[in-house]
């Protein structure tokens, strides 16, 4: 249709723009780009055209040009308000706060709308914070920017009181500029007070300002008043009351010191805290007498409503919390918990002063238990306080719990909740390590209780009808407790049958409570340890992890996920998970920017900084790049290795390496009821948890290999040996060995002649190289400086013998290195065999095998310049005969070893499939039937079958995949 219309009106911009969009949608990017460029060259100003072009450019990943397009249009039509606003938005979208600030100010001057002024102010603040930048944080010119922003606020035609968000912005500027007195004054105005009362964000900022100013006395009084008179039960208020009261104590102490020592400079009291700002003599405790007396003029005497003595201040809090707790009864946990929190704080103070601790905390913990043990949250509530109990107190506490456990009553929901709380607290309070027998006995105890209590969940306690499948069982946590005990028994004994039992319990409980995600989380972890990845995957999928959860939770299935990838034999389950988990980052880049703009449109300035931070956290997520790297490791086994593709990949990895990452992974989702100091998450981790260091090391490893393969220099990768010292805590032993192997490769295979990046890219895209000397694709063979940089440049003390000499390689060292490289494969094969034979956790054997396969591919990659098949970028390498020889020889040896590993794995697969194996597996779970007949050997056998089948698939797949790699390359 566009074409038809264009015939009539060939210059009609809207239609041309639409055509460009249509071409893009029709997957004709070249034509679309051409048309798009033509339209842009004409510098359109029409609203519709601009709107369409914005879409086109967005699709083409040319967002920065949107800004230029709008800028140009606005310059042409400076009276067009809409264009101006769009230009502003386009700057916001790409985070160029400075330009946004300028445009907004221009808009304000032209159109006089206060909104534009505040846009400019907010942009200045973002600029000062360097929000979303590479190094977020205050910039050097922040004071200038913020003072400018402040001047704009104070000269604005509307006061900042108009909305909580304007006020928030104003206070933020004052606080950042450390103009606390001014901020304080604003807060104390009538309208300021009202805004603090109705807006939580403003009140939070108010609290920060009070704290920064050292107005602890006032904060204490304010919180006391809110709690005692206004029915405020916000936990933050309780906490702030406790914190500020202890600040008051500190302040009083430092002031009395200053008083007795007149020589001490006045600044001392400021250092310890705040200058005082109240003026009447002390009288009662934290409760207000009702008179409203905000004092703006700091005077050096204590507040009338706060006593001077620390004991009196603390006693005041105790009384307040007790009174509020009594008033609220059991409907509110706040004041009850606050009493505990206060005692914990007192304990820290007493310990600091070397005093003996009182027993109040223990007493209160028992009281809290008696009051709230019928609520599920009781355990989580008490945890931090129980953790501070001393040895002697713990004995008393455990005796108390034992008594409660003996009085168990599982006939009601409340009784069940109490028993669950007792059990969790008992485990948490017990000393580590626990013996196998204890854990075994506990597991049975929990399971018996689980089955006894299960009928409680048959009917909905509220409606009396059958419990719908969408509801959770009340007894679920007992199964999770049993699982904790079983895993603990396994960590003590390494008897795998405990893990099998854990799976049987999980599968049973999960079938009774389909929506309990904790069962799925735990099942994923344990199935992975046993290399039953298919089972892990189906439990993971049952959780229906989606949207932003993929960022926080995909680590559950993707951590070292390439170990189980069967992409080589056509099973794309794991690679698909990588793709699915990465989708959110695209969503983030488009949607979050839109929402930042929306927050500007609706003038919700309090949200903007946080949105920008959110975008940054997701954009630079550690998991994002762990997933990316895992995907690379899954995929390169399946793809033909070509220097051109590797060059592109290389650039992406270098980009990743430069990022400042955020770790958003959620490990708290793994329920933990282990004794103090143990963590179920750690116990069920498939290898040590990976983090920034792991990512850096592996990125560098691949960057270096890819750079060699595509014959370009890279500054990103240094000597891997420098990592071998401190940086390796995030790697498994086998990953460390793999890393060493990569270093051997690097030292052994001489660096090929390098070409410049531009030349390499030009060769890749087919564009002609500009004809100046620097871009000759072939640089002077071995003598060039780039080769040197990749050679011995920054080697540290104990690396393998360097031999990448400019004048060719030393054949003796080459031979030695080649042998070491070949030895890696021999060792790996032996290790896989040993792990399988010794019956270690199967994931480990898979891990070693997968790494050996990866090592083989790595060898292929770095050999590319010498044995590459592709003729396109082939360069002559002089005197490479001996290198090629030894490469071929190592490869042949590696292939032999990998074939052996493949056989070991396929033998293992066969065993996994046998009936005898299944029976043995089920027999190992016989102890469970003691707890209840439902956990019979038949049931265990059905779980065993699924598990073993999944293991068989993994072993088989790995075995076949290895053969493919060995033969295919």
């Amino acid at each position, binding site marked *: 249709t566009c074409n038809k219309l264009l015939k009539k009106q060939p210059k009609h911009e809207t239609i041309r723009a639409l055509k460009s969009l249509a071409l893009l949608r029709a997957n004709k990017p070249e034509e679309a780009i051409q048309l798009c460029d033509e339209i842009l060259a004409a510098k359109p100003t029409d609203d519709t055209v601009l709107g369409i072009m914005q879409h086109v450019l967005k699709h083409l990943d040319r967002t920065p040009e949107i800004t230029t397009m709008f800028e140009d249009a606005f310059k042409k039509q400076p009276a067009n308000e809409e264009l101006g606003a769009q230009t502003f938005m386009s700057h916001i979208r790409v985070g160029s706060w400075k330009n946004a600030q300028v445009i907004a100010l221009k808009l304000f001057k032209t159109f006089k709308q206060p909104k534009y002024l505040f846009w400019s102010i907010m942009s200045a603040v973002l600029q000062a914070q360097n929000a979303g930048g590479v190094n977020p944080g205050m910039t050097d010119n922040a004071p200038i920017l913020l003072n400018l922003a402040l001047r704009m606020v104070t000269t604005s035609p509307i006061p900042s009181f108009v909305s909580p968000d304007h006020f928030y912005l104003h206070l933020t500027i004052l606080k950042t500029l450390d103009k606390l007195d001014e901020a304080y004054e604003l807060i104390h105005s009538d309208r300021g007070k009202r805004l603090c009362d*109705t807006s939580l964000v403003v009140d939070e900022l108010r609290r920060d300002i009070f704290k920064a100013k050292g107005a602890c006395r006032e904060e204490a009084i304010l919180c006391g008043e809110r709690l005692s008179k206004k029915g405020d039960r916000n936990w933050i208020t309780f906490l702030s009351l406790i914190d500020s009261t202890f600040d008051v104590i500190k302040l009083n102490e430092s002031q009395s010191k200053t008083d007795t020592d007149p020589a001490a400079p006045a600044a001392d009291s400021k250092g310890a805290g705040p200058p005082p700002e109240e003026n009447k003599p002390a009288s009662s405790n934290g409760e207000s007498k009702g008179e409203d007396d905000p004092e703006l003029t700091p005077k050096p005497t204590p507040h009338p409503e706060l006593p001077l003595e620390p004991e009196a201040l603390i006693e005041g809090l105790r009384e307040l919390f007790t009174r509020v707790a009594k008033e609220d009864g059991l409907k509110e946990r706040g004041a009850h918990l606050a009493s505990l929190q206060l005692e914990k704080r007192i304990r820290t103070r007493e310990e600091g002063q070397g005093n003996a601790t009182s027993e109040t905390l223990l007493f209160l913990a028992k009281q809290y238990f008696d009051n709230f043990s019928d609520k*599920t949250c009781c355990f989580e*509530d008490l*945890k931090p306080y129980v953790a501070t109990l001393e040895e002697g107190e713990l004995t008393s506490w455990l005796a108390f719990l034992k008594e409660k456990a003996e009085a168990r009553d599982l006939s009601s929901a409340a009784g069940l909740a109490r028993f669950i709380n007792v059990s969790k607290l008992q485990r948490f309070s017990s000393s580590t390590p626990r013996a196998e027998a204890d854990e075994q006995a506990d597991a049975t105890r929990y399971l018996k209780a689980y089955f006894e209590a299960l009928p409680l969940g048959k009917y909905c306690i509220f409606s009396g009808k059958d419990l719908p499948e969408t509801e959770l069982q009340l007894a679920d946590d007992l199964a999770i407790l049993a699982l904790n005990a079983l895993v603990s028994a396994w960590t003590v004994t390494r008897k795998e049958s405990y893990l099998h039992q854990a799976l049987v319990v999980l599968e049973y409980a999960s079938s009774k409570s389909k929506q309990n995600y904790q069962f799925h989380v735990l099942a994923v972890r344990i199935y992975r340890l046993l290399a039953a990845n298919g089972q892990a995957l189906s439990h993971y999928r049952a*959780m229906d992890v989606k949207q932003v959860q993929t960022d926080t939770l995909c680590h559950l299935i993707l951590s070292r996920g390439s170990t189980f990838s069967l992409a080589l034999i056509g099973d794309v389950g794991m690679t698909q998970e990588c793709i699915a988990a990465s989708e959110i980052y695209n969503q983030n880049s488009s949607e979050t920017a839109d929402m930042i703009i929306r927050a500007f449109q609706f003038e919700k300035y309090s949200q903007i900084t946080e949105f920008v931070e959110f975008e940054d956290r997701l954009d630079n997520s550690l998991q994002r790049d762990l997933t990316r790297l895992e995907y690379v490791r899954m995929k390169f086994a399946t793809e033909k290795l070509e220097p051109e593709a590797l060059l592109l990949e290389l650039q992406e990895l270098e980009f990743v390496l430069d990022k400042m990452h955020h770790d958003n992974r959620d490990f708290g989702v793994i329920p933990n009821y282990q004794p103090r100091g143990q963590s179920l998450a750690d116990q069920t981790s498939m290898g040590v948890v990976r983090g920034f260091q792991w990512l850096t090391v592996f990125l560098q490893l691949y960057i270096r290999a890819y750079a060699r393969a595509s014959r370009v220099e890279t500054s990103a990768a240094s000597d891997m040996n420098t990592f071998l010292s401190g940086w390796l805590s995030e790697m498994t032993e086998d990953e460390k060995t793999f890393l060493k192997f990569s270093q051997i490769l690097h030292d052994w295979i001489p660096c090929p002649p390098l070409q410049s990046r531009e030349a390499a890219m030009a060769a890749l895209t087919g564009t002609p190289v500009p004809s100046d000397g620097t871009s000759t694709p072939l640089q002077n063979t071995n003598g060039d400086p780039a080769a040197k940089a990749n050679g011995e440049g920054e080697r540290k003390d104990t690396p393998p013998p360097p031999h990448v000499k400019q004048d060719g390689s030393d054949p003796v060292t080459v031979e030695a290195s080649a042998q070491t490289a070949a030895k890696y494969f021999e060792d790996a094969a032996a290790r896989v065999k040993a792990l399988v034979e010794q019956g270690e956790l199967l994931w480990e054997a898979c891990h070693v095998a997968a790494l050996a396969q990866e090592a083989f591919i790595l060898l292929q990659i770095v050999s590319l310049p010498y044995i590459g098949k592709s003729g396109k970028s082939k360069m002559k390498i002089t005197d490479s005969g001996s290198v090629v020889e030894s490469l071929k020889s190592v490869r042949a040896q590696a292939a032999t070893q990998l074939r052996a590993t493949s056989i070991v794995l396929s033998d293992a697969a066969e065993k996994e499939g046998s009936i005898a194996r299944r029976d043995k597996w089920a027999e190992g779970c016989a102890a469970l039937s003691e707890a209840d007949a439902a956990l019979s050997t038949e049931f265990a056998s059905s779980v065993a079958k699924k598990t073993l089948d999944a293991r068989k698939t993994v072993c088989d797949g790995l075995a076949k995949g290895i053969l493919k790699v060995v033969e295919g390359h």
Partner: protein
Amino acid sequence: MSTAVFTRNLDLWTETYSISFYLNYLARWPDLCLVQEAPNGKMMGYVLGKAEGHAQEWHGHVTAITVAPEYRRLGLARKMMDELERISTEVYNGYFVDLYVRCANHLAINMYEGMGYSVYRRVAQYYSRLPHEKGGRDQEDAFDMRKPLPRDTMRRSVRPNGREIIIPRDQAP
């Protein structure tokens, strides 16, 4: 409410929405978006609300409210609703607060009635079917429940026969 809250939401009844869904609420009605955190930092529950409607229909609306299983039966939902009603009154000066609930979700309906809400009308086929459920009218229809705020002096948002008044989905806002 912080943007970090919607990352851990694995409850079947609480849909996990896109980034822009949450951020849109935060970008427009941040004071009607509340989260309750336990002292240990765990999220206990959250509510997302908005203000909408013309003239005498100007009101606060509860889009989503959820409490984590381990923090139920503590009155958290009521507290969040109280706060949302307070803000709807003091900041937005609305006539009422309303919410939609599956007709089959008796538990929730009872709870809202206990908080002073009553059925104003029934919206046909408002929800899609839940997994594991057979469907049916009560599964898919919603009750629009309302609670008058002080400004609704005439109590127009309350009517005794609300359950019998059915409107099609496209007429609901």
